[in-house]
């Protein structure tokens, strides 16, 4: 009996199935780099979004470019969390894991919940592949997986059978296995096939055989689900209560790139993005390089120093100079950032943080560059530091970064990270007419008795942005200390003190216009959980759970790290205790204690991975002695 025939027979079993409703589910696809897991994951999350769930996703790329097939290093994963209510993270524990080969099983099984569904391609558990994954015995047979609901499917065989009459090479046929397994998982979670079918049709429009193959694989997988006796159940995750509107899925890097293009248009300025490739920031460069027709210019510089140099040069000329990098690149940019501090020119530095120190773990996330952004330069060098809380928020916050840079003539750090960069969530597509304008004025006339004083400031202490090419405003700037008002070089001691304090005050003045720190939860209470950057999602989820348990806990997110909102100290003092979870050894904690003298408890994780919701929750419980 062929596998397909066998499947048909089993189909009769489907009558006995029942459907269970779940508020949320976490699925992970894992396989070899060549197995197309990223594609399967993306399709699954799109289908879920289109279906109406809230979603949050996280890819997990291998560190190597293309590790040997079947090796542990070559495993590629994609996790999707979809739900019937607001979610903030890709999920702690996996409810259903797809493992396309032994290596994928080995590296991912520890994240599967006890009793979770484990779908494996049993055809891939050959002696050689088991060996590559370091298995001495076959886990499908040695009982080591009995904690899970193992669904061993001969995917290769079934897929080949389903596609047997198509004129395709065996390799081409096998490439469709991801759609087969995707179909199976679609069946399991009642996902609509249409979005994926549409995608296949568009994508392979020029290759009907491949199109047909993928469609068949998807459908075969779906049908196969019906026949599975190991899985006498389907799950239904109802639609979520989501604000009406148009949505798309967006990663942090995409949102950052789109935000930059948007800021350029809102300001009526050319965006000049200068960067030297580095993981995990490179995709911003790649995305923007495609945006020429939006008036976006990209420069791939010879190194990070050149990149920020070009960005500052562009700003000097009146464009929006932006540079993007990761931590090691920030090291190299620090001297030039300092020049921009002194010259008081706008420039935005995007730091997509990764695990350090040094080269560290380039593909892994971390939040350990905060103090570097604040203090990593010689002398008193105040800069603005912002940090987005979620992938979609990268869009609004990078626009804010640009706005502050140009309106205060200052460098602005934008602290993204590897997790935000690659994980995705739904993004409500903004209405263009509702986006704020970015107003920029360049002087055209002398500002003092027929002369132009480049360091004559307005009431906010901001100096004018006079552009080369403007007759009569010729002036010189540079990195030597400058005389107040005139901008001439000055070694005068009191002038230096005045300028140092003025630069600091200018940045401090931004606190006058940023929103106060708000809390989610009670305005006073036993515990405040305060955070910055990408840990937001896990923290909100944990705090909401704790609140539902009746605990007196609130959380607050610092999107402005420098200056901080004016009420920060006051907010901290309203709670008996303060918890600061961070993916570092305590950067924000040092700052809060140092600035506000409020004792903070740290929850610090430095594993190259985001917090699990449960980790935060446990700490909350521990502190509140629940």
């Amino acid at each position, binding site marked *: 009996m062929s596998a397909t025939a066998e499947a048909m027979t089993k189909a009769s079993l489907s009558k006995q199935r029942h459907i269970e409703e779940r*508020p949320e589910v976490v699925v992970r696809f894992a396989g070899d780099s060549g197995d197309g897991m990223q594609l399967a994951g993306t399709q699954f999350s*799109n289908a879920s979004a*289109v279906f*109406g769930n*809230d979603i949050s996703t996280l890819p997990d790329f291998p560190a190597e470019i293309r590790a040997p097939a079947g090796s542990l290093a070559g495993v590629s994963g994609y996790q999707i969390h979809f*739900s*019937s*209510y*607001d979610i903030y993270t890709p999920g702690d524990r996996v409810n259903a894991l797809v493992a396309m080969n032994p290596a994928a099983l080995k590296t991912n099984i520890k994240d599967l919940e006890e009793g979770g569904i484990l779908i494996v391609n049993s055809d891939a558990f050959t002696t050689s592949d088991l060996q590559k994954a370091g298995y001495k015995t076959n886990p499908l047979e040695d009982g080591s997986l009995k904690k899970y609901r193992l669904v061993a499917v001969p995917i290769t065989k079934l897929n080949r059978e389903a596609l047997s009459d198509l004129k395709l090479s065996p390799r081409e046929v096998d490439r469709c296995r991801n759609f087969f397994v995707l179909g199976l998982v679609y069946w399991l979670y009642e996902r609509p096939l249409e979005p994926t079918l549409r995608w296949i049709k568009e994508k392979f429009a020029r290759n009907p055989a491949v199109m047909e193959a993928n469609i068949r694989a998807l459908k075969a997988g779906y049908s196969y689900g019906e026949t599975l006796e190991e899985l006498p159940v389907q799950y239904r995750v*109802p*639609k979520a*209560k*989501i604000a*009406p*509107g*148009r*949505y*798309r899925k967006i990663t942090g890097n995409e949102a950052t790139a*789109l935000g930059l293009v*948007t800021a350029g248009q809102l300001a009526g300025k*050319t965006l000049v993005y*200068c960067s030297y490739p580095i993981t995990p920031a490179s995709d911003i460069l790649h995305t923007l390089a495609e*945006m*020429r*027709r*939006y008036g*976006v*210019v990209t*420069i791939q*510089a010879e*190194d990070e*120093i*050149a990149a*920020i*140099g*070009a960005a500052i*040069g*562009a*700003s*000097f*000329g*009146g*464009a929006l*100079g932006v540079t993007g990098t990761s931590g090691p690149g920030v090291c190299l940019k620090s001297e*030039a950032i300092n020049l921009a501090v002194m010259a008081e020119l706008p420039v935005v530095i995007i730091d997509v943080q990764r695990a350090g120190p040094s080269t560290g773990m380039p593909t892994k996330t971390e939040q350990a560059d905060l103090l570097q952004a604040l203090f990593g330069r010689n002398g008193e060098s105040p800069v603005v530091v912002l940090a987005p809380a979620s992938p979609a928020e990268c869009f609004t916050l990078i626009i804010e970064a640009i706005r502050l840079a140009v309106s205060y003539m200052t460098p602005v750090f934008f602290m993204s990270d590897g997790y935000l960069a690659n994980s995705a969530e739904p993004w409500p*597509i*903004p209405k*263009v007419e509702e*986006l704020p304008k970015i107003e920029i004025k360049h002087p055209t006339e002398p500002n003092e008795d027929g002369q132009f004083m480049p360091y004559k400031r307005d009431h906010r202490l901001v100096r004018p942005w006079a*552009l*080369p*090419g403007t007759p009569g405003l*010729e*002036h*010189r*700037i*540079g*990195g030597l200390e400058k005389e107040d008002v005139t901008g*001439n*070089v000055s070694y005068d001691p009191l002038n230096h003190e005045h300028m140092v304090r003025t630069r600091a005050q200018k940045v401090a003045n931004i606190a006058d216009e940023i929103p106060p720190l708000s809390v989610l939860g009670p305005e006073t209470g036993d515990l405040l959980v305060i955070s910055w950057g990408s840990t937001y999602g896990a923290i909100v989820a944990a705090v909401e759970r704790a609140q539902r348990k009746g605990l007196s806990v609130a959380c607050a997110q610092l999107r402005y790290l420098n200056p901080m909102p004016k009420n920060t100290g006051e907010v901290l003092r309203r709670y008996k205790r303060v918890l600061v979870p961070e993916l570092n050894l305590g950067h924000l904690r040092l700052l809060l204690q140092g600035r506000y003298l409020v004792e903070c408890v740290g929850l610090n994780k430095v594993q190259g991975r985001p917090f699990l919701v449960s980790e935060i929750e446990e700490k909350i419980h521990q502190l509140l002695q629940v």
Partner: protein
Amino acid sequence: MPAATLPTLTPKDFASDQDVRWCPGCGDYSILAQMKKVCASLGIPREKFVFISGIGCSSRFPYYMNTYGFHTIHGRAPTFATGLKVARPDLLVWVITGDGDGLSIGGNHLLHALRRNVDIKIVLFNNEIYGLTKGQYSPTSRLGTRTKSSPLGSIENPIRPITIALAAEATFVARTIDVDVNHLTETLRRAAFHKGSAFVEVYQNCKVFNDGVFEYTTDKEVKSENVLYLEQGKPLIFGKNRDKGIRLNGLEPEVVELGKGVSVDDLIIHDEKAAEPTLAFVLSRMYHPQFPEPVGVFRAIERPTFEDLLNRQVEDAIKAKGRGKLEELFQSEDIWVVEEAEANGPAALD
């Protein structure tokens, strides 16, 4: 770059109100004076000039020019200039640098700016010393040079700025001398009119820390024996009585005396426009005292500039698909719409 309408400007118009603070006798003064002359003669409005520099005595230059100026950080001036020129192709951007600024810490940026052919004019004041930090040897200092940091003599083989510029695929490469006023002026003018990166090495005397290192090219008595003026299409002749020339022997240049069986026709004819920079390379390696040292334009060829190519990509993209609008930008393959009615999920459960 130079425009048709000529504002009448004088060198004085280009003098800023700042006291010039180089040491008395420094070669920089002459370069400053000539630069003002050249700027005034170009027919370009003053506000269109920008001088960008790194750090060094030479890099103080922008403060003394009544134009836009940016005194940046050590070695990085070409990077700022690149960003500026890309953003503002309408400006005439000069980069002022030194042998330390441009070839020690900043060697790489120089190289990449030149290879990209960004339309900036780089003037490297070569005094074979670090002036501003009070006298250490530089990458152009001759072997054995005794300085504060090489009290027993420098052991580092110098590099030749012109050779490096040629290897970097520069489209305009020239050399001149601080006190050779007319030649300096003419060379700077040529650089200004070149479309693309221009690289000009200026032999500059550091009165305080390396006095006289180029004296053989400036001393009235000997300079005509030691300097070879390059002129397009002309044979390589030099000497007080213009009785010597440079001939090729295979691939190697040699000094010959005219007359004794050697005629002008045997000499190398200078060709700055040669597609390949081989001749320029050969010339760049002629050094005193074996050879007279060539000054003038070694190479001047045409190649599209970086900012033109970049902006052309923008224009072409717009031509092909229209100017991008934000509405389009936000589109993607998978957009879904949540209708009011659909928003029907349960409250969160635990």
